[in-house]
């Protein structure tokens, strides 16, 4: 993995000079003309830059595009993380017409730089298929739409029904009940909350949900946008509450990956796990029916459980697109419920973004997930998608890891985050 990255200083400098890196990386992608997509209509060729490098998402995109008859399509697949890390240079170099990306701040960031095309006209046609929350997440700071949502997955607290029945646990509705339940689990010899943060991002989920429960969605988004101070007493309270819960978290989290923590939940060593629905991947097929979840309990009645993290994946149109008409036609197809159902059928951890999508084929878990999201007034995109990428990766990841390692030193940590924030959001 590391070898693919330029590692010497000189290579880095070359990269900084943006010499040919985007071209080289795109060249690395496999050029797969979509099978069956050759029956071209009158709109020429549409190219798609895809980060769907894993087996299932890749197959899913290929099958969705197969139904597109108005133009020939060509999918350039690039490794998921590589695609993400090189998005800047990719969009400034020779991007494909349509590219896979994320909703929310991450989309707005590139729209603001003029690297994406306004697709409000597409939204006039597809708008009725989406709820307001999805439309908001597809809208740039200028009020125009730049993004077509395809699939998403909610974050919630997952548990095994059989274990909970056996021990007589019930999903808690408030933080006090949650703490009481955790205490009971501890007494029963089970680690209450599975936890892992070796990769740096999973702890963001815990911060997000606590902040939204305690200070509300609006404060959370404004904090993510760099408009609030991290030394604010409200932020301090969040870390304080989290510190109080630390004794129930699985210890040694910084050396563990989420997959290992997911395994511990599957093996009933841990009682519950706050994670995205993709935790299902760690469960063997036979145990999938035993997996259930509840939304993180209420902390402040003023906000209840009105917000959740549910990152949305979808498509955007690059500013340098050569075939704008063809690309817009393709976006309309990808917004179709039938296209998104292909994805939800292939990947049980995903839900269709369109409200017209057919949910009859959903698994029990998918149905519960869709229900959870439909009840939420606000949908956040997860910390690293709701704020500047440089702030998330170079400040928040090390800071949250520091907190997980030493939960008692909150004040110096928050002061340090605030100082670094000031350097980035200037």
């Amino acid at each position: 993995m590391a070898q693919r990255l330029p590692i010497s200083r000189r290579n880095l400098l070359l990269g900084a000079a943006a010499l040919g890196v985007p071209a080289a990386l795109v060249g690395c992608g496999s050029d797969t003309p979509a099978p069956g997509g050759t029956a071209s209509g009158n709109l020429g060729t549409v190219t798609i830059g895809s980060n769907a490098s894993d087996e299932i998402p890749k197959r899913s995109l290929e099958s969705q595009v197969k139904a597109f008859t108005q133009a020939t399509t060509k999918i350039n697949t690039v490794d998921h993380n590589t695609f993400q890390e090189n998005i800047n240079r990719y969009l400034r170099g020779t991007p494909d017409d349509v590219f896979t990306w994320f909703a929310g701040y991450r989309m707005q960031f590139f729209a603001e730089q003029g690297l994406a095309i306004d697709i409000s006209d597409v939204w006039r046609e597809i708008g009725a298929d989406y709820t307001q929350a999805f439309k908001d997440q597809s809208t740039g700071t200028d009020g125009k739409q730049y993004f077509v949502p395809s699939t998403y997955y909610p974050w919630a607290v997952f548990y095994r029904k059989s274990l909970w029945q056996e021990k007589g646990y019930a999903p808690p509705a408030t933080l006090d009940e949650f703490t009481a339940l955790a205490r009971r689990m501890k007494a029963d010899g089970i680690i209450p909350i599975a936890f892992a943060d070796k990769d740096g991002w999973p702890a963001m989920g815990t911060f997000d949900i606590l902040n939204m429960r305690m200070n509300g969605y609006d404060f959370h988004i404004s904090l993510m946008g760099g408009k609030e101070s991290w030394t604010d007493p409200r932020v301090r309270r969040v870390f304080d509450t989290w510190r109080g819960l630390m004794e129930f978290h699985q210890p040694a989290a910084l050396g563990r990956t989420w997959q290992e923590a997911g395994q511990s939940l599957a093996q009933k060593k841990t009682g519950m796990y706050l994670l995205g629905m993709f935790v299902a991947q760690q469960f063997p097929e036979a145990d999938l029916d035993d997996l259930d979840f509840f939304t993180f309990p209420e902390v402040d009645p003023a906000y209840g459980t009105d917000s959740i993290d549910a990152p949305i994946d979808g498509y955007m149109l690059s500013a340098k697109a050569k075939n704008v008409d063809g690309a817009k036609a393709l976006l309309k197809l990808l917004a179709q419920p039938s296209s998104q159902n292909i994805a939800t059928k292939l990947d049980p951890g995903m839900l269709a973004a369109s409200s017209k999508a057919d949910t009859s084929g959903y698994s029990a878990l998918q149905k519960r997930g869709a229900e959870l999201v439909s009840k939420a007034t606000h949908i956040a995109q997860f910390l690293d998608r709701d704020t500047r990428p440089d702030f998330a990766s170079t400040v928040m990841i090390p800071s949250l890891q520091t907190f997980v390692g030493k939960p008692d030193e909150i004040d110096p940590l928050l002061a340090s985050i605030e100082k670094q924030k000031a350097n980035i959001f200037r």
Partner: protein
Amino acid sequence: MAVRTRRYSARDMTVLVIGLGVAVIVNLGLIWAPTLASIGLSGTDWNGIGPIEWVGGQNYHDLSAEYPPFWSAVRNNLLWLGFLGLVATPFGLFCAVLLDRRLRLSRVYQSALYMPVVLSLAVVGFIAQLVYSSDYGVLNAVTGLTVDWLGDSSVNIWVVMVAAAWRHVGYVMIIYLAGLKAVDPALKEAAAIDGANERQSFFRVVFPTLRPVNVIVLVITVIEALRAFDIVYAINKGRNGLELLSVLVTENIVGEASRIGFGSAIAVILLAISLGFIVTYLSQLFREER
């Protein structure tokens, strides 16, 4: 020495210009230009897309005063250098000396010690995870400990350096072994006749004759310490106690973050540290030649 004026024919000149010119262009284009560009960029704020904004020494202030990973990276790089130089390299020499004594099965030991060298450090990183993981790692399973070797930021750098040294020892050993084989046995014999014991004959006679090898090993050790990257990146992307300057540069510049000015400032610091060693080494070398 008689001074003779040399005349170059047109052909000589062409050959000279092409031969030297290509080298100079490659040197300037691939080494000097990026180096100077990065020094220049280190005084700016640039996200790779928008306009480049000059901020002077701001980046250096930010990273030394307000960026906690920076100082742990400097500390780790120096630790790395110290550990390889003072522990791994002498141990490699020790192994070479033992193997040079033609022990039984010395070929087997030699291969066993040299084996890790063919592995990339990234692979060593994956192996280290199998050994040190707190839940499924071999070390905890065998010893019955529950230490979070890779997650605890006060111990992880040490165990990772052990893993890196595992590879470094073999490398150093093979170089010293070659050097030892080239030492004239007559020297040792003469020392023995003069009444030197084993230790004296090694430190007073054999080791000094290994001087050229020592220089090579020293350079390799310094290079290995400064370019360390892949092993920590494979383990946890160089975070939480495993920060290294090379990782911070990558993290800031190459990733989606694109803090190009800030990352360049870190790169310049790494350059300054490297230059310190390179200049010392070269000045030593030139002094001897004179």
